Every structure is written in structure tokens, then in C-alpha cells.
């Protein structure tokens, strides 16, 4: 096993402030605005981009990522070992970590928390992430009361045995659903634990006034030296993004939780006074056009390739004011396995028309394009509609509410084409396998699934299983290579026309300090709450 200390130290030094800058001060308060009220802060249940990062600051898991990167490091665990057969992980817990209620974290808490997420009564949307742990089926079906794969030889050791090798397992131990919760508090609050969260994280919840504000305050017992840097974070909810922007410009707000309002984006980016307050970064996102391979005319691979050639991605990116980079493959550039040398399908309407003729659709064909009804998605769908009309595909637009589009995508013969905008895949964790199973694998091509192109290539499914069984860290490179090949094979079959990868633009007040990576952290949206600080008198 490689040691983690060196890599962590290296990564932290990369993150450190520029040479010569003073050590950031600790203290102060930051104000973050949101339009919607926060739904729940229960780590087993919360699963939207708004509470995702808040939960990460209230709770901890066995593993975490180096701030600003996608690199895994032990968190509540001090170290871990993997057995020879690649099936058993032994985590040694850090000693002296305390829950916000003062009790020390023990191995039994880890076991309890993961089992709680899996138990059907919890209704956790993330239960499926733990499917590789031994005893998963028995617990979900009610045949067992616990996960037989998790044992606690002593108070500071957690042993997790898998029923199959799973190269993504350490990512699963860093996902919110696995975070440690104290049993006594969960039982005390029952269904309302999500409004009364108690964890081990850098912050604890001090106040929650429904519909108005939440206040996080520093956890004085937090185990990580010097974190969090802020004393308090105030989340003001119910704030229109446009009004929030005005308040930020007046110095009343530090972070726009919902981002820069699209209508103001160009104005801000062209304003020398404010341009420098915006940090740009990539995110693990792909916006794509899904073509249902079981419906005519998209059952023909030539038509699907023609569509890939027909879409003018640069024009679509102009529609969204340049807030994205063009995509030619499913994996975004920040994701391991992305192939920067792959050329993809160039914008070439002539070639597309040729392919259509070859496919037997020289006279064109009628079909439908589904899209979500919030701006800019209808405008993007119209642009796609025009591009397709140029090669003879006459697509009628079905612009619907999000839930309705998702419902249509989950039916086998309902939606011939879906523009994914507003519902597009953002990775749960930074590993290429997360971009395959649910959205491109056979497992997702089921009623109610998320594989809207209903593409199911059993050969690739076998390769994917092979890649995810490569648990030996020495084979990490080889595994990523295999994933790269899988995604390029998918592009040959072209069930998607990848259109763009959205970029993130985080606007912050002048007072906030910290390296840029913290403000566009790939795992924390909008910012890494534990790491930002107030610049004092500089």
C-alpha cells in the first residue's frame, strides 16, 4: 500500500497561498445566498447540489478529497489497508474525533451510519452505492438486520468486506451517504434529523429559521488543525439571484450560491471592476443529446453519427454566453479517462447529409426532441432543431417540466431524442465508472432508468465490470486506460451527441481569500466552505 502522508503533504503545499503571502487569518463570517430553502441536511438523504457541500462541512466520512482536487485521502480514517484478494478494506480510525454533541466517534458509528443509508426505511437515494458490500441484498430485502460485510474488531477498526472487487469503493467511502452520524441523535430526532444535523464536521448547525436563514458555526473540537478558517457562515435563503448580485456589489454578500444570473453574466465579465471577482473552473458535467437507439430513425448508427456531425456546438455555446467548452466525448476534461487527443465528430453538415442518404433517409425523417422548459434549454433545443433540419431531420420540440422529461426518458419508446440540459449528468464522484453504469450501461436501460438512449452493449458492460474489478493501486493507470477505450467505443456507436461541458463561474466578494481552486472545487459547490477565509486588512 502506498503511504498517503507524502501525497497529502505534496498536494497541500500545491494549494498553499502564493509564496510570501501571510498565513491566512482564522475568524470572521461569510454570507452565502440561495434562492431555494435548504431541503435537508441528513447525509443519508440530501442529494441536491445545494445541500451536498453543506453536508460535507457538517459531517465527515472515512475518506475525503484533497481540497480543490479529485485526489482521495483518508479523513476519519487515519489509514487503510486492502487485503491481497482485493475484497477486504481495513480502516484504522483517527482517535479523539468528537461528534458535535461531545461524544467520541467509534467504529460502531461507521457501521451504523452505512447500514442506516442502506436500510429501506431511511429512503436514502444513495443506498445503491453500497451494493458491493457483502450482505447488501440481505439488508435491503429485510432478511438481515445489519450488513454482514462490516465488522468492528475494536473501537478504532472498521473492516469492510465486499462481495466483488470494486475499484470505486474508496470514492464511495468519501460520498455523503457514508458519512458518520451519531445513533443517539438520529433516534432522538427521527425523521427530523435532517433539520437537526449532528456530525463530526468542521462546522455545526447553530440556527435554522425555515425559509429565512441557516447559520453554521465553527466546531471548536474539529480534529483538523486550523480548520475551518471561518467562525460562521450565514446562508440566507429565498434570495432572487439578481437581487443577491446587487447585494454582493454593495458588499452585503460574499458568495452567490446560485451563481451569476445569466442575464447579467456578460455585463459582469466585461466589467473591469468585477471581472476579477469571478473564478472560472471546470466541472464534472456533460450536456448531451441522447438518441433512443431502440426507436426509428435512431436505431440506425449512421443516423446517430449524422446527428453528431450536424450539431454546431460553438453556436450553442454562444447561446449560453460562452459558459461552457465544446464536448466530443462523454467524459469531461477534469475527469480521469478523458482523452484530449480524441477528435470526435467534426461539425460537417455535408457529411451528415451523406450519412443520412446512406442510411436511407435521403428525403428526411420526422421525429421529436424533448427538452426541459427552463432557460436556456428551450433556446438550445431550438438551435439543435435548426441544425437537424439542415440535414433533413424534422424534429418537433417537446418542451416540458423537468420531471416530465425524466419520466419520458425512463420509458422505452417515449422520447426519440432528449436534450439533457437542466438534468445533465454531474458526477457523484470523480471516477469514470460513474459516467457509465446509470447513463450508458445496460443497468440504466430499464424502465425508470437514466439511460435515456437505451443503449446497451453487453460487450462494453463486461469491459466495465473488468475495469471496476481492477482494485490494485498499481493498476490504476491501466484501469483508467481501459475506461478511456470504453468511452471511445461508445462514441463509435454514438448513442449520444455530446454537446458541451459546463464551466463554473463563482463570484465572490473582495473580502474572501483562498486559492482559486477552493472556489471551483470539483467536489464542493459553490465553494469549499472549510477552506475559504476572510482577508484581514489587506
Amino acid at each position: 500500500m502506498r503511504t498517503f502522508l507524502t501525497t497529502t503533504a505534496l498536494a497541500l503545499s500545491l494549494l498553499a497561498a502564493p509564496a510570501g503571502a501571510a498565513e491566512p487569518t482564522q475568524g470572521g463570517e461569510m454570507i452565502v445566498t440561495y434562492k431555494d430553502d435548504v431541503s435537508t441536511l441528513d447525509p443519508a438523504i440530501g442529494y441536491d447540489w445545494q445541500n451536498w457541500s453543506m453536508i460535507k462541512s457538517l459531517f465527515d466520512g472515512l475518506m475525503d478529497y484533497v481540497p480543490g482536487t479529485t485526489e482521495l485521502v483518508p479523513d476519519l480514517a487515519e489509514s487503510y489497508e486492502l487485503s491481497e484478494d482485493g475484497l477486504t478494506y481495513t480502516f484504522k480510525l483517527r482517535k479523539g474525533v468528537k461528534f458535535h454533541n461531545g461524544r467520541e466517534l467509534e467504529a460502531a458509528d461507521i457501521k451504523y451510519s452505512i447500514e442506516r443509508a442502506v436500510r429501506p426505511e431511511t429512503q436514502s437515494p444513495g443506498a445503491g452505492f453500497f451494493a458491493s458490500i457483502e450482505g447488501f441484498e440481505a439488508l435491503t430485502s429485510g432478511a438481515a438486520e445489519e450488513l454482514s460485510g462490516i465488522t468492528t474488531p475494536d473501537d478504532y477498526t472498521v473492516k469492510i468486506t465486499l462481495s466483488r472487487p470494486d475499484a470505486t469503493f474508496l470514492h464511495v467511502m468519501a460520498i455523503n451517504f457514508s458519512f458518520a452520524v451519531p445513533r443517539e441523535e438520529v433516534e432522538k430526532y427521527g425523521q427530523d434529523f435532517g433539520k437537526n444535523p449532528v456530525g463530526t464536521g468542521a462546522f455545526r448547525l447553530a440556527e435554522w429559521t425555515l425559509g429565512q436563514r441557516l447559520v453554521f458555526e465553527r466546531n471548536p473540537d474539529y480534529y483538523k488543525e486550523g480548520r475551518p478558517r471561518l467562525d460562521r457562515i450565514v446562508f440566507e435563503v429565498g434570495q432572487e439571484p439578481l437581487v443577491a448580485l446587487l447585494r454582493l456589489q454593495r458588499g452585503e454578500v460574499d458568495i452567490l450560491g446560485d451563481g451569476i444570473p445569466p442575464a447579467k453574466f456578460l455585463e459582469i465579465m466585461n466589467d473591469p471592476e468585477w471581472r476579477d471577482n469571478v473564478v472560472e473552473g471546470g466541472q464534472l458535467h456533460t450536456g448531451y443529446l441522447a438518441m433512443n437507439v431502440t426507436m426509428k430513425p435512431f436505431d440506425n448508427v449512421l443516423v446517430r453519427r449524422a446527428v453528431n456531425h450536424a450539431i454546431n456546438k460553438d453556436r450553442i455555446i454562444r447561446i449560453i454566453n460562452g459558459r461552457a467548452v465544446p464536448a466530443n466525448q462523454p467524459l469531461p476534461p477534469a475527469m480521469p479517462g478523458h482523452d484530449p487527443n480524441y477528435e470526435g465528430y467534426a461539425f460537417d453538415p455535408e457529411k451528415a447529409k451523406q450519412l443520412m442518404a446512406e442510411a436511407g433517409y435521403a428525403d428526411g425523417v420526422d421525429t421529436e426532441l424533448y427538452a426541459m422548459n427552463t432557460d436556456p434549454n428551450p433556446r438550445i433545443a431550438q438551435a439543435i432543431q435548426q441544425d437537424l433540419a439542415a440535414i433533413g431531420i424534422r424534429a418537433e420540440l417537446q418542451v416540458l417540466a423537468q420531471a416530465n422529461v425524466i419520466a419520458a426518458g425512463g420509458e422505452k419508446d417515449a422520447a426519440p431524442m432528449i436534450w439533457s440540459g437542466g438534468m445533465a449528468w454531474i458526477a457523484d464522484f470523480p471516477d469514470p465508472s460513474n459516467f457509465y453504469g446509470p447513463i450508458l450501461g445496460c443497468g440504466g436501460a430499464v424502465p425508470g432508468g437514466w439511460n435515456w438512449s437505451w443503449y446497451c452493449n453487453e460487450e462494453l458492460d463486461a469491459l466495465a465490470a473488468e475495469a471496476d474489478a481492477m482494485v490494485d493501486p498499481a493498476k490504476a493507470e491501466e484501469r483508467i486506460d481501459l475506461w478511456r477505450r470504453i468511452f471511445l467505443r461508445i462514441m463509435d456507436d454514438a448513442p449520444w451527441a455530446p454537446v458541451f461541458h459546463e464551466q463554473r463561474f463563482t463570484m465572490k466578494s473582495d473580502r474572501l481569500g483562498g486559492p482559486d481552486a477552493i472556489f471551483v472545487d470539483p467536489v464542493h459547490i459553490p465553494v469549499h466552505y472549510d477552506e475559504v477565509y476572510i482577508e484581514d486588512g489587506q
Partner: protein
Amino acid sequence: MIGYIARRLGQAVFILIGISLVTYVLVYLIPADPVRQIAGRSATPETVESIRRQLGLDLPLWQQYLRYLGDLLQGDLGRSYIQKTEVATLIASRLPATLELMAGAILLELLIGLSAGIYAASRRGRPADRAIMVASFAAVSAPQFVVGILLLYVFAVQLGWFPIGGYGTLWHLVLPALTLGLLGGGWYARMMRSAMIEVLRQDYIVTARAKGAGRFRILFVHALRNAALPVVAMVGLDIGIFMSGAVVVESVYGWPGIGQLAWQAIQRVDIPIIVGVTIVAAVAIVLGNLLADLVAPFIDPRIKFRR
């Protein structure tokens, strides 16, 4: 009078059951599956089915509705799918802000509307009357979000007299209440003016004038009380409407009222909240109307409660 109130409230129960039925069926017809909404995109089909069973959403519609109605009659509005909290708690938490905005808005619209309407009626056909009618027409037709953002921009952002949105002090209330008050005031001004003109034409006013009563006395003692009836009925309606939330104004000013709650719930297809707010709004409209009908006899003694 007590018998009258009891009878009206009895009718209200049937109206509410009817409204709950219609709302429930309409929401059921939305082709979105709330369970998938709760379960999220990574859930396995087993998880989805287990959540469906636990929420009782696998039952036929009529059973679901009867269950909901049974809970409703005990004051239980159910739990929000997305917010994971009692709907009653969520609505209650929004009540103070909603009532505050309602009081402020009704006060301002009466103040603006009645004074403008009475003045216009007394100056009928003259430039002041015309100016007031043009202004009230503009106020009635102006979209709430335009007026809201305009007031916010001028008085909060540029002049800095008021906070930029939010909730808390009386200062926070001024701009949102003024936005609603200006727009509602337009209606009241037009209504008050025509009611006053109607009354001022009556014989008894002519008599009063012939007896030498002053202009003020005629307007405020003789005419106002008779002209005020439609206004009272309209305030009753306004109570109901504002209780269901001033969605646009609450959004612009970040006012934590019921309208904001409903709007967020609609966007996230949080069905229990949508149904719950609809029912609370219906109750408020029924009560508002009842209140207006109860006040009417005191203003116009010719109106009597029917037994």
C-alpha cells in the same frame, strides 16, 4: 348571527373538501413520478419501489385521497417530499411574514386607493380626476415584477433608503408592501371613484347639499359609508389572495411568505406542499369572504343576516 356564522362555516367544510379533491386529482394527473423525484437518479429500482410503498403511493388514487382527507380532518397536511418536514410546520413558519405583508399591503392600498378615489370623484371631469384615473390605470396594468424591481433599484440600490430585500424590520416591509399597495391602490381608486359618483347622484345627497351641508360633510358623512360596501367585499377577497401568497413580490424581495414556499414547491414538484398551500389559501378566501359579509351589516344597516 352565531347561527349564520355556523352555517357559513359548515358550507365551508364542503367547499374545502371539494377543493382538496380537485387539487389532489389535478396534481395526480401531472405525469411526473414523485417517487423518482425523491429517490434521485442513482436509486436502484428496488429503492424506488420501497419508497413508493412506504409513502402509500402504490395504492389506488381513491385510497390515497381518503387517507389524505382523513389526515387533513385531523389537521395533518402530510410531509413534504423534498423538504422532509411537516407541511403544517413549513406553512406555519411562513405565516408571520405573510400576515405582515398582507397587513402592510392592505393598509397602503386602502390609503392610496380610497383617498385617490374620493378625491377624483369630488373633482369629477377635471384635470385632477383625469390624472388620477390615468395613474390608476397605469398602476393596475403594471406587472408586479417591473414595479417591484424598479422600486428596489431606485430606493434600495441607488438611494440606499431601504434594505435590498430580506425580512425582519419595518424598513424591510416598506417596499414590498408599497409595490402591492400601489397596484392594489389602482383598483381601489377606480372602484371608489365610481361608487362615490354613483352615490353622489342620489337624491339624498342633493337634499343634503340643498340644506347647505359642506363639501367635506357630504363626502365623508353622507356618501362615504354607502360607497364603502364594495370596498369591504374586496378587502375580504384580498385577505384570501394575500394569504395564498404574493408570489412575484415575495420572490423579488426575498420575502419569506407562503407564496415563496408555494413557488419553490411547484418548481420542485413537491406535491404535499402544493396541495397544502392550496387548501390553506382556500380556507383563507372562505374566511375573508365571511369576514366581509359579517362587516357589511354594520356599514349598511339595510343588509340583514338571513336566518
